């Protein structure tokens, strides 16, 4: 813990131009990731989790306005000249995207696209060496018959295979940070597990730090050391995985946990959070979650709480203390019944 | 490594040498071929290259260059001069003509031009019943007296026969060569002759040039006839190249890509103010006219001679020349070109709107007369028929006559002319040879003539004027001044018909590069290519 963190995000903001002035999609988030560790960023779609990551990698459309700070190995990424950040992207930071079909260029072979990732950062490598590396990479993500697969087009791959290829491409230059944006969402459940296993194994083997973005707490459950829960463009709760799962005190996180299918409670009816996340164009005053929150008080609709340590996690909720108290006392049962 | 690179160098060197070789060969080649080419820009209207079938302005130029008639028209556009016939005589009443051929004359294949060739050519011209066959109308017998003498007998006095055989369509063909190409001269020729296509690729004349290549509406390429018995032409090669319109021709002349441009209109010619180009504006023998069709379905009983006369007063003849050719033209009285026999004393019509109005009122036609004008949508001799007819429309509107214009393609026009649906029309005429008789035959309102059946349609009596046939016959029996007087009389009759109303004899713009010499306009032959040279 004494060394500088791999990635340190402070007050990162991202806004897009809208018809009536800029609209903030990410409203000041703080995150930290140590080398070799996995940080889970969890939230529904529209919570700003993907935008935040794309913002720090400068992958948002040019019209986006990004401010704050994101230090990668001590280097500031926000505002870094494009030429410089290009040296980092694909080299030191690899990315995996949600839908591997649309994320691959349909008119180029998988091999060519991985080859490109290599050559962009190693201009001197000979074609033969680069090709060999592509094959090695495909083999390392357990793609059978890599020498045949290498010349195929993305649409000739199955979803899982495509995601493996995507991982191979992200790892092409042995990055120290991997940003995985919903890597399993588009896949079947059984394939999901395989991909997650693969990611976990590769990250561990190579000592790669990983930001795992997902809407599904179950995905990060066995993987992340730390978890940040995002809602409405902010981090609403952060803590270690264990603390989030067992000692959360944010109503939203509780909702997410309740919505998790659990094998041991397979018969139990899934609980989902009522309502929809706020649109970034029409953000409520006060706490963003207030309109959907059963515990919301008039105060919640007036003031937007900031992140503060409560119990074992950091929470942005006015009633966090009450919830902590509740979870430890008789109120717990009420929560468990789904009164939330 | 070394070997490879040295091999490459050698290869490159060899390549360079090859390139140099080619270049020098090219230069050498062009030195040998340093024969000058004359380029003429024209919108070609070729209908055939077979002398007995051809009938067009470009044909006149081509046939004059490649074939030779017995007689030709001198540079004064009046005097007949010897060509293949070194001399000729005729009997007193112009029914027998004897031609003595130049014994030196040879065809382009070297064979001599003989009397039998003349007989065969004339018979073919007559029997083919093509457009120029009328030149042989009335020929009773054509016989070879000996190898170099031909005698033609006609069934009625014809003082114009000599003029007719100066037309380029009467150019003499090499009988053997033509027959080898499928040409026939006997009675069956009209249906059995199959040489039309062959003539598009071969020429069998005795003229100063021979045909090299003809690509329709692209180029007509001639080269010097090496066996020519006369004075060799200055240019070894002549190309007539297709150029659609006046502006393109003017631009080509300005840039020097053509030496002569033949269809530049007077307005465009004004913009050609470079010292490299010479433009000469001379009167032509062409004219443009409009015609009343009193026999048409709609005009029957309306276009009486009186109404026709009245309407001729409505026309702004001076304005017409201004509008159609920018003033570069002449008025013309009867449908006989100015300068042809009998035209000297004819007075052109003049505008008199008041008279027109009063005459129309007299005839009860001062309002409500509506006419449909059908005419070819063409631009000829610098006159855009559309412009001309629009002017006529405006002039007629002044006297309360409404004209609807219907420009059509030429074939449609021909059909409409035969169908009696047009009340007015406009066309043009260029002489086929020097002589006023062709006009009498074509425009005369005599039984069965082209114009009687057109203008009269099913009521020929509305236009018939049998006097004209008699005068024409008298003219053909006479010659010189006497004939001219008859043609003048005929001209007055044609004017009194008020059917064919000539409007403009457009001037000809002879435009050529300044270094070109010998460009002239011939009444029979258009542009005699053999006389042209480069300074």
């Amino acid at each position: 813990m004494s060394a500088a963190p791999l990635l340190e995000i402070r007050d990162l903001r991202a806004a897009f131009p809208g018809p009536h002035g800029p609209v903030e999609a990410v409203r000041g988030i703080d995150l930290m990731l140590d080398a070799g560790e996995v940080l889970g960023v969890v939230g529904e779609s529209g919570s700003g989790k993907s935008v935040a990551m794309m913002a720090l990698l400068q992958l948002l459309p040019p019209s986006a306005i990004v401010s704050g700070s994101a230090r990668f190995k001590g280097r500031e990424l926000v505002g870094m000249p494009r030429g410089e950040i290009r040296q980092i992207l694909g080299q030191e930071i690899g990315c995996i995207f949600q839908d591997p079909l649309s994320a691959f260029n349909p008119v180029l072979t998988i091999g060519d696209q991985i080859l490109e990732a290599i050559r962009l950062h190693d201009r001197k490598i000979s074609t033969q060496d680069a090709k060999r590396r592509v094959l090695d990479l495909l083999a390392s993500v357990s793609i059978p018959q890599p020498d045949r697969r290498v010349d195929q087009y993305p649409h000739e791959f199955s979803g899982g295979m495509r995601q493996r290829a995507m991982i191979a491409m992200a790892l092409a230059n042995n990055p120290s940070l991997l940003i995985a944006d919903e890597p399993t969402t588009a896949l079947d459940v059984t394939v999901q597990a395989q991909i997650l296993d693969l990611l976990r194994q590769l990250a561990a083997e190579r000592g790669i730090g990983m930001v795992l973005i997902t809407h599904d707490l179950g995905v990060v459950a066995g993987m992340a050391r730390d978890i940040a829960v995002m809602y409405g463009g902010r981090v609403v709760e952060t803590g270690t995985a264990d603390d989030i799962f067992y000692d959360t005190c944010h109503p939203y996180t509780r909702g997410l946990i309740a919505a998790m299918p659990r094998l041991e409670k397979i018969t139990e009816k899934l609980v989902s959070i009522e309502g929809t996340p706020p649109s970034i164009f029409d953000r409520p005053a006060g706490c963003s979650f207030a309109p959907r929150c059963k515990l919301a008080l008039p105060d919640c609709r007036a003031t937007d709480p900031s992140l503060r340590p409560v119990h074992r996690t950091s929470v942005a909720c006015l009633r966090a203390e009450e919830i902590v108290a509740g979870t430890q006392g008789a109120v717990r049962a009420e929560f468990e019944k789904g009164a939330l | 490594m070394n070997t490879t690179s040295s091999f490459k160098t050698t290869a490159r060197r060899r390549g360079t040498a090859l390139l140099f070789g080619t270049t020098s060969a090219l230069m050498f080649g062009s030195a040998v071929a340093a024969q000058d080419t004359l380029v003429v820009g024209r919108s070609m209207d070729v209908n055939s290259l077979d002398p007995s079938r051809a009938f067009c302005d470009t044909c006149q130029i081509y046939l004059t260059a490649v074939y030779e008639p017995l007689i030709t028209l001198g540079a004064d556009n009046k005097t007949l001069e010897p060509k293949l016939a070194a001399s000729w005589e005729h009997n007193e009443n112009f029914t027998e003509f004897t031609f003595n051929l130049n014994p030196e004359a040879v065809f382009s294949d070297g064979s001599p031009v003989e009397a039998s060739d003349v007989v065969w050519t004339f018979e073919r011209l007559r029997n083919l019943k093509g457009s120029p066959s009328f030149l042989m109308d009335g020929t009773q017998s054509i016989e070879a007296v000996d190898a170099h003498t031909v005698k033609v007998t006609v069934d009625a006095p014809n003082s114009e026969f000599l003029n007719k055989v100066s037309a380029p369509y009467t150019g003499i063909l090499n009988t053997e060569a033509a027959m080898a190409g499928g040409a026939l001269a006997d009675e069956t020729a009209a249906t059995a002759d199959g040489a039309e296509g062959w003539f598009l690729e071969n020429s069998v004349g005795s003229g100063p040039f021979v045909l090299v290549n003809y690509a329709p509406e692209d180029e007509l390429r001639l080269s010097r006839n090496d066996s020519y018995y006369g004075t060799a032409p200055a240019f070894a090669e002549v190309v007539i190249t297709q150029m659609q319109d006046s502006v393109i021709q003017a631009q080509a002349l300005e840039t020097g890509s053509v030496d002569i441009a033949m269809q530049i209109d007077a307005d465009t010619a004004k913009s050609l103010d470079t010292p490299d180009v010479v433009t000469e504006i001379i009167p032509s023998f062409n004219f443009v006219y409009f015609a009343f069709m009193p026999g048409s379905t709609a005009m029957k009983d309306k276009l009486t001679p009186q109404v026709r006369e009245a309407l001729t007063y409505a026309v702004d003849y001076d304005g017409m020349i201004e509008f159609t050719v920018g003033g570069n033209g002449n008025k013309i009285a009867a449908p006989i070109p100015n300068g042809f026999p009998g035209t000297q004393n004819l007075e052109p019509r003049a505008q008199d709107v008041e008279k027109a109005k009063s005459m129309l009122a007299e005839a009860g036609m001062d309002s409500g007369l509506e006419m449909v004008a059908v005419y070819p949508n063409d631009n000829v001799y610098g006159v855009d028929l559309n412009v001309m007819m629009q002017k006529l429309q405006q002039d007629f509107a002044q006297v309360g006559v409404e004209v609807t214009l219907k420009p059509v393609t030429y074939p449609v026009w021909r059909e409409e002319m035969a169908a009696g649906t047009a009340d007015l029309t406009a066309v043009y005429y260029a002489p086929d040879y020097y002589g006023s008789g062709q006009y009498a035959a074509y425009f005369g309102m005599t039984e069965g003539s082209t114009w009687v059946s057109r203008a009269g349609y099913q009521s020929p009596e509305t236009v018939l004027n049998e006097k004209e046939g008699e005068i024409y016959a008298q003219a053909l029996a006479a010659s010189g001044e006497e004939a001219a007087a008859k043609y003048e009389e005929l001209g007055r009759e044609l004017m009194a018909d008020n059917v064919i109303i000539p409007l403009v004899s457009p001037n000809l713009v002879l435009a050529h590069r300044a270094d070109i010499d010998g460009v002239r306009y011939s009444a029979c032959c258009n542009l005699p290519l053999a006389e042209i040279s480069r300074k």
Partner: protein
Amino acid sequence: MLRYLIRRVLGVPFLLLGVASVAFILSQSTKGDPLSALVPERMMNNPEIVQAVEAQWGLDKPLPVRYVVYMKNLVQGDMGTSFNTRRPVARDIAERLPATLELVVAAMIVGTTLGMAIGLLSARFRHSIFDNAARGFALLGSSLPIFWSGLIMLYIFSVQLKWTPGTGRLDARTQAPEGVTGFYTVDALLAGNGGLFIEALSHLALPALVLGWSVIGIVARLVRSSLLDALGQDYVRTARAKGASDRVVLINHALRNALIPVLTVLGFTFAYLITGAVLTEAIFSWPGIGSYAVSAARSLDYPAIGGVTIVGATAFLLANLVTDIAYAWANPRIKVSG
């Protein structure tokens, strides 16, 4: 897709049959009298001659018989004899078609390269002055009547600036190269005649530019919009995430995908160019089938009209077919699923 293509190829003969029938019917129903092109004016009153001509040209037979004869001859490559040129229509077309094709191909090259360049730069510098100016220029080309803009260009470049020679495929003094392709530029190269090549090329340049200009707009607009479309795709983000520069993203990723829809308009562009060629040929004294068609239509030379429409339609059909095949070829997603 493969099946679709096969169906397309098999459909071509049937379409051609339809085309030929329509061409025949159209040309037979013309208003003008074909005899007027065949019988001399002074002979129209001579029934003997008129009959002979009718028999010679087969005009005396009833329409269905003529149709059968026409079709039979057509299959053997005989399109009849032109009233105008008095030569076999097939031969006229064979002589003139290469001129048109050379012009159209050159215009296509001009139009698509400039169109793509403009579309590419417009997409890259979207909403900049360049974007608007370039699109304006491109649009201008398809908004001016080509017979007028052609004259203006000829006046500027040939008469005033003297950058290009006058009209025609070559200087009138120059003999056309003997060649297999009929494309003077290609034939000159094959003959190793550099001077002739330059001459042919310089004659080709202006008409090709004028004609090509008319399709720059179509191509540029499509390239621009499909590029913008492609630039918003996920794979572009992937490429950026790999550290690819804007240029690499544009060329390697966006353009390749954007060109696929562009391929589909090439067939359409071809139709556009054929239309333009008819007028361009008239202005530039270009001896192709366009000017042939115009004079045929004007003089109701219906064997020629029929021949030209059939050949034009065939070329057009083939162009569309080639487009489809190229589309299939350029789009790997289609290859296997066929």
